[in-house]
């Protein structure tokens, strides 16, 4: 840090390299020119190299036929689709695995983080062993373990292992029942919306009443009661029905149900278990950061156990937990790129792998891939800054 003496500008400014202002400008110009020269050198080299290899550049390849298949996609994709569709498939697959992973990692991570603080000796020791084991082993190794050593050694289709709820697991992946909603089900969805609005309204009214009169109102129970009543009534009256399409073993494979490929299952498993160990540490640190005096003060005010947690401890702990938690979510999303190593068709696999190999447009493909992650990261940090400014302690 060059601290410029700008408060009192010198009366006469002669050109001298000892003048911090001038020196700062000289340094910056020097660095700027060096970086610019370096970039020009790189661009020049690249142009010469591309010419020598007879390669073209540009993003026009995105509108050409891809000509390869993708083993798993959320929307139809075949050999005749375009490269930009392959890009979209990769992107949606990345987002899919990230979202599922985040849900599981959060549940598991919070459970283990709280378990580490348990007063029960065995429980806290087990949680410690989990955290210290999992986070000291590379994620890629864990993915290989789940994929090659566990899922790939599952029995063949005809000897599938049956799991509860009509689910089956075998070499080809996990087969689960798929819910089918009939046309009337839209009404139930509407009822859900109505219940949510009612709940929100009650909560707001209760808060205003609390501020006005100091009387509390059982928001949660009332809200839950109203929701259940509204939804159940709509469901029964409209005659909506949910049926499950259950996977059934045929001669060669399962028919029906939802088929989750082993790559997806292994990736979700690995990512959730790995990230959960970091989330657990975050949660533990957050809860420990709330000083014991807060608990005692809440007790002295006569708050009940769960009021103490809900109104005093958790809000303060969350302030510490949420920022690192978000960066863990971001890490999980970035780590989902390791799916490329076990053949899950996410962005890096589909795009930086197959597409790059077929088109040879290395610079464009890698730049586009990096851009996606960059946007995800910057978006998340923008959100985080907004949250931080909202919950930050208002200090004197």
């Amino acid at each position, binding site marked *: 840090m*060059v601290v410029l003496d700008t408060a009192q500008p010198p009366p006469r400014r002669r050109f001298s390299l000892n003048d911090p202002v001038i020196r700062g400008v000289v340094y910056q110009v020097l660095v700027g020119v060096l970086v610019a020269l370096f970039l020009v050198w790189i661009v020049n080299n690249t142009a010469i190299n591309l010419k020598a290899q007879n390669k073209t550049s540009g993003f026009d390849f995105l509108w050409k036929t891809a000509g390869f298949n993708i083993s798993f996609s959320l929307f139809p994709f075949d050999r005749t689709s375009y490269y930009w569709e392959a890009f979209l498939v990769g992107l949606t697959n990345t987002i899919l695995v990230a979202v599922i992973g985040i849900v599981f990692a959060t549940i598991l991570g919070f459970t283990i983080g709280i378990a580490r603080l348990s007063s029960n000796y065995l429980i806290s020791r087990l949680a410690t062993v989990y955290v210290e*084991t999992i986070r000291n082993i590379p994620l890629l190794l864990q993915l290989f373990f789940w994929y090659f050593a566990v899922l790939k050694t599952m029995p063949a289709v005809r000897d599938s292992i049956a799991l509860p709820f009509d689910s089956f697991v075998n070499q080809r992946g996990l087969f689960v029942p798929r819910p089918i909603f009939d046309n009337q089900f839209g009404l139930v969805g509407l009822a859900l919306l109505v219940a949510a609005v009612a709940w929100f309204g009650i909560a707001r009214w209760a808060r205003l009443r609390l501020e006005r009169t100091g009387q509390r109102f059982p928001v949660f129970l009332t809200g839950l009661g109203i929701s259940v009543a509204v939804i159940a009534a709509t469901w029964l009256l409209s005659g909506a029905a949910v049926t499950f399409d259950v996977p059934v073993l045929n001669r060669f494979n399962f028919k029906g149900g939802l088929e989750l490929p082993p790559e997806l299952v292994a990736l979700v498993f690995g990512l959730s278990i790995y990230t959960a160990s970091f989330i657990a540490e975050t949660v533990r640190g957050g809860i420990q950061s709330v000083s014991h005096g807060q608990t005692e003060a809440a007790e002295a005010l006569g708050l009940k156990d769960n009021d103490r947690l809900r109104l005093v401890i958790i809000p303060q702990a969350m302030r510490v937990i949420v920022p690192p938690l978000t960066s863990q979510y971001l890490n999980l999303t970035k780590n989902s790129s*390791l799916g490329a190593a076990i053949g899950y068709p996410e962005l890096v696999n589909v795009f930086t792998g197959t597409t*790059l190999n077929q088109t040879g447009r290395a610079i464009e493909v890698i730049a586009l891939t*990096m851009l996606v992650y960059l946007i995800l990261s910057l978006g998340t940090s923008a959100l985080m800054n907004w949250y931080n400014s909202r919950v930050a302690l208002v200090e004197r």
Partner: protein
Amino acid sequence: MTDIAFVRSEMTAAQPAPRSNAGVAAWLRRNLFANATDTVLTILAVVFLLWIIPGLYGFLIGRAVPPGGTVEQCRVENVGACWAYVASEIEFFIYGFYPMAEYWRPNLVFALLALLGAPLLIPHAPLKVINAVLFFVVFPIASVVLLAGGMFGLRYVPTEQWGGLLVTLIISVVGISCALPIGILLALGRQSKLPVIKSLSVCFIELVRAVPLITVLFMASIMLPLFMPQGTTVDKLLRALVGVTLFASAYMAEVVRGGMQAIGRGQYEAAQALGLGYWRRMGLVVLPQALKHVIPGIVGTFISLFKDTSLVYIVGMKDLLEAVKTKNDAIEWAAPTQAVTGYIFAAAVFWIFCFSMSRYARFWERRLDTGHKR
């Protein structure tokens, strides 16, 4: 005065703690059976342990084939871990395709690493500066000469033949040694008041931290040859090293910045008042304090870098994970538990390194903890 009947003149001896508060039974009651929920949890945990410990013991030791066993022993029904497989391939896991007659060279490098690295980690070991110069300057050059050869009568061993744990260690040690100075420069740049330097540093740090390591590695392995003048060939190991170093230096920069921000403003101002110029102010006053404070953070970065080196497998490098994965597919040891055993071995190696480093970071945290916390 005299009608006080009794005044005790000596203290009563301390009573032992009540039975309900001392001893094993009290400990059990307090830690395992404090209330109904606790009791249920304890029972569940005990059931879980009773289920998993015999299973693990049986797999890892009881039904396992010890080193020296044959592949036929590993091919029986319901066999445990096949340690014979790991033992017979251990040299490949450590050295890769490095010529067997030259194993003394990597061994010497490992020995140097331990000899020079260990005193560097001990806080009060003497000759820190000489040690650091030896470790960060002399050791890398000596290692390259030793491992690659081609001079001083040593046989030339191309990097394609290096592999296994050797490559994992090379990438992580070189990566962290190069990332530290670059990271410090980037952190200084980010704290700088000069807008051009500041924005360049911020752009680099944020860009690299936003993308996954794989894309950086892809960039290094595919685009680096394009960036170089025509006809230059960049060694594959070197490409991976460049990628890993760039990646780690961005994270290192943030760690160092954290340390610099923790230094009070008074330190900067005092250094200025002494008339020190920028580099002396940073080099003699700010950085020594900042770096000491972030030693746990630096070790943490090293741990994640060490784990992340396994990703070079994806761009076709031969590290420990690649060695294990290759041999897991080898037909001569094909057995039901071959792959699991291989991965458990690799996991154990990584775990030992990472866990001991995290203990070391914990040790520094305690040393630096001056007790000012609430």
